[in-house]
């Protein structure tokens, strides 16, 4: 069986697998593009503007440093995508799973059973959030971790509704309210 998170059961029904909205990822890549543009500008306009810096040994030194900068750009683009790809939230018929990859060296998987939900709030903030319909969903819990957060997810209102609908299906004797 292909598992999305480590403790996934065979009989568990997956309702939603969600990541950060693509517009948020795009925003990060736009910042990356600014740094990449610096490299292009230096390579394109550097030699005519400061010929002494790009000729002879000095030119080779500058080219070497630019190559290292290029390697750094490639690495950072890769890491931006890896962190985007590995941060997911999963909603199943039994629980909410929050997989957090904070940097390369911190991987956390938190789970919340649907019957422990106390309150769900969704919010859409800012110009881009309103235009592209992404925002945050906060799940107040009765568990050890008091609040679950889905950050910058697409269609937060629909996720809020899904969670509340799943909670409504929980038998009253199992609820923690």
């Amino acid at each position, binding site marked *: 069986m292909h598992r*999305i998170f480590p403790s996934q059961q065979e009989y568990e029904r997956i309702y939603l*697998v969600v990541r950060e909205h693509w517009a948020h990822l795009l925003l990060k890549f736009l910042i990356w593009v600014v740094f990449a543009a610096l490299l292009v500008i230096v390579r394109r306009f550097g030699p005519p503007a400061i010929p002494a810096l790009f000729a002879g*040994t000095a030119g*080779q*030194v500058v*080219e*070497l*440093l630019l*190559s*290292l900068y*290029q*390697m*750094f750009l*490639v*690495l950072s683009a*890769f*890491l931006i*995508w*890896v962190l985007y*790809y*590995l941060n*997911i939230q999963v909603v199943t018929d039994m629980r909410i799973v929050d*997989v957090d*990859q904070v940097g*390369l*060296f911190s*991987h956390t998987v938190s789970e919340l059973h649907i019957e422990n939900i106390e309150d769900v709030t969704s919010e859409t903030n800012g110009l881009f959030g309103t235009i592209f319909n992404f925002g945050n969903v906060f799940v107040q819990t009765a568990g050890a971790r008091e609040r679950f957060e889905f950050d910058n997810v697409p269609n937060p209102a629909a996720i809020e509704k899904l969670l509340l609908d799943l909670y409504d299906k929980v038998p009253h004797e199992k609820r923690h309210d």
Partner: protein
Amino acid sequence: MPQENMLYLGLAGIFYVSSAVMGFFSFFGIYVLVKHGQSRGLALLVSLLYASVFIASLEQARGLLGSLR
């Protein structure tokens, strides 16, 4: 020691230290992606693509360092 040699050693130091640090983060990024990624096929594909671009950039930088010798 001649000034050219000092310059070369300094640049070689910068090159090898930064390559080692970036190589370490690259390796760990690929490891984390393959280990925790939902689709192993996609993780391997992206890793291969990234590794080929990164190694090409590394080779280019190494060639430039070699030409300074």
